[in-house]
């Protein structure tokens, strides 16, 4: 089948501002990934079309972009799940500076990730020749948050991010959850202090955009609500 694709283009060397370009892509099939469509355009229509991608199956987190108004991974979205009767509108992730076409500058996103101390903090040394003991039940409590691939679909879909560029955002706080709830970690308090600040967790207004955007189907809002409870009970 043939489909219409409308892509936001921007090359800072020659464009004053971003503009939409239409492509009529021929011979696609409904089991194609949207990433396959982008490759088809790059390889056969216009090789200057610029986007990030690597693993092409939803693990590396490179190809987050806005598709018909919603943040998605291009490699985890099949055409059969999109209305192809109308042009598919593809734009870069919102609220981050555009470098070129669908490539955005992710540095502020990763700076926020680093703010929450995304590593195990311990004072007690581990046993020298064996693992720390952790029940499987406790381990599995981390798995959902540890699934995060740092694609930024959630953080850039959040209206609180749009209105306050300093807001930590769901991805960074989900990472904080992953460590705060790790029975092996001893840094919960210092991380909760970081979250309990004006640009921290209280800017989450449970709008649920993050859940809808997450390609790994993580219930991010639930995780953040647990952190809020933890901070509140700490204050009590």
């Amino acid at each position, binding site marked *: 089948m043939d489909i219409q694709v409308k892509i936001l283009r921007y090359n800072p060397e020659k464009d004053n501002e971003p503009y939409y370009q239409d492509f009529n892509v021929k011979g696609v099939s409904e089991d194609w990934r949207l990433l396959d469509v982008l490759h088809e355009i790059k390889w056969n229509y216009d090789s200057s079309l610029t986007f990030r991608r690597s693993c092409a199956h939803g*693990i590396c987190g490179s190809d987050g972009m806005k598709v018909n108004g919603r943040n998605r991974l291009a490699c985890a979205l099949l055409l059969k799940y999109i209305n192809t009767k109308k042009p598919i509108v593809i734009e870069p992730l919102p609220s981050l500076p555009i470098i070129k076409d669908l490539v955005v500058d992710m540095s502020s996103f990763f700076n926020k990730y680093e703010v929450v101390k995304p590593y195990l903090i311990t004072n007690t040394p581990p046993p020298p020749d064996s*693992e720390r*003991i952790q*029940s499987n039940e406790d381990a599995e409590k981390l798995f959902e948050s540890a699934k995060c691939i740092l694609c930024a679909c959630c953080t850039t879909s959040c209206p609180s991010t749009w209105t306050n560029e300093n807001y930590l955002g769901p991805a960074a706080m989900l990472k904080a959850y992953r460590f705060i709830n790790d029975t092996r970690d001893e840094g919960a308090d210092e991380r909760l202090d970081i979250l309990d600040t004006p640009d921290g967790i209280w800017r989450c207004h449970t709008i649920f955009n993050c859940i809808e955007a997450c390609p790994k189907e993580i219930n991010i809002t639930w995780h953040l609500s647990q952190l809020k409870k933890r901070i509140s009970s700490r204050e009590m």
Partner: protein
Amino acid sequence: MIKKFDVVIVGAGGAGLRAAVEIPKEYSCAVISKVFPTRSHTGTAQGGVCAALSNMEDDSWENHAFDTVKGSDYLGDQDSIEVMCKDAIRAIMELEHMGMPFSRNEDGKIAQRQFGGHTKPADMNDPYGKRVSVKRACYSADRTGHVMLQTLYENTIKNQVTFFSEYFVTELLMEDGVCKGVVAFDIATSELHIFQAKAVLIATGGYGRVFRITSNSHAGTGDGMALVYKAGLPLEDMEFFQFHPTGLWKLGILVSEAARGEGGILKNKDGERFMIRYAPTVMDLAPRDMVSRAIITEIREGRGIRGSDGTDYVLLDLTHLGKEVIDDKLPEITGFARTYLGVEPTTDPIPIQPTAHYAMGGIPTNVNCEVLLNEDGDIVRGLYAAGECACVSVHGGNRLGTNSLLDLVVFGRRGGKAIHEFLKTASFGDLNENAGKETNGTIKKLMDSKGSEKISNIRTELQNSMMEDCGVFRTDEGLRKMISKLKELRERFKNIAVQDKSRVFNTDLVEALELENLLLNAEATVYSAYARHESRGAHTREDFPVRDDQNWMKHTFAFWKEDQDPELKFKPVVVTRFQPMERKY
């Protein structure tokens, strides 16, 4: 612009990051990667990382070493294999101490499961008698590589490692047999940088993108191997490329061996569990090379299922495992089946076919990750390699599942340690004033070219031909065809056009450079495969169907020669405690 660092690490997957963690803070260390570190291909590994922890049942590192040697079809160097399997236990504990989340057993220790080719003697008093599968693979559901990569990256953040992400390395600075740094360009700006270093470690991963159907990410173009090869240094055992038996039909996306480790069964179109005929003792958990050959044989003999794309597949049946096991232990891969093929694994079998997965060969090193200058074992001062791009050789002719993640952390650390030792006496040499000129010329030529050849056409033809003529089964005729195809493609490459003339984030230019690297890696692969007149591990010659220990207990070293065929030399396999035996499972 010249930047000076004591150490430059190229590649930010498992091996590169583990090495970076090992460099003490008093030394400056830069990690250069063409993708942001957490995008690295290590993250796609699923099933596990192995060590004989004996958390579930009795096991020993000697069992692990024996399996690795046998799995390698006796091509692995046994001194290196002993180092890896002994160190495995410490390496897993270290990952746990770093914070890696693992699935746990009832005692709260790291859980372990079965994996292909990992066995132990059925009777401990008969060490070389009948063997049974053993639970040796440590895992975190089916996201083991993902959480390992995250954990290692987190530890580099903790250690404040300096990263140059989305920089593409184009050239090794070699002077008088000493490595003095690398040249890289910043993809975002096209600006060229010279990284002067006392030591360089290459950790750039594999080159699966040389084949049409592959589990490898688009970044898997073997850039580090090609850098080394083009610098006149050898590539070892490139004819050994592993096809993973269970790639998702059409797409090649990996469906972990953990699916069979948890009890999944391969079936042909008649519903027959065909592995019983190929590996009667371990069946579906035979090593990957054997299972891939078995699948292709079933298909060739008419017992495959014809797909809508004209290719044939067989079935991976998980339905009898029950929803709970599938959802708890294999959530990611069953998700792939649902998303990409619309198959519900709890009620229907998954269509699979072999997919190009892993390079056993690569940049030859010794056990301290020092790169070898030649087949005599002399080393290149200041140059190190670790991970899939390297060939120690612990995987020989065929890698066992879960040994790759282990390789990354064991040898990444060893490389870091060796560099630390080296730095104690090393100093910056003088850099030739022409440093970087070659890259400048290459890029200018590509950008100015008005050629008529499309990058994507050459790449597709390469991938199709490699799949056809240098895949699971190989013949003299097919390989000769492939050699002339490569010559043609190399000629046509001279006439390619980079159509994007922008200096900002030019991925068209990146694809051109990657294509050249694919062509170089394909050359080393095809010529090495053509020369090896035997079948061993993943290298199967239909015209030489048997393993020939008399003549071929040796590693191939391929040297690049400008505008000529590569030169092949050979290095004997190191045998310590395990004499070659017939490889049956």
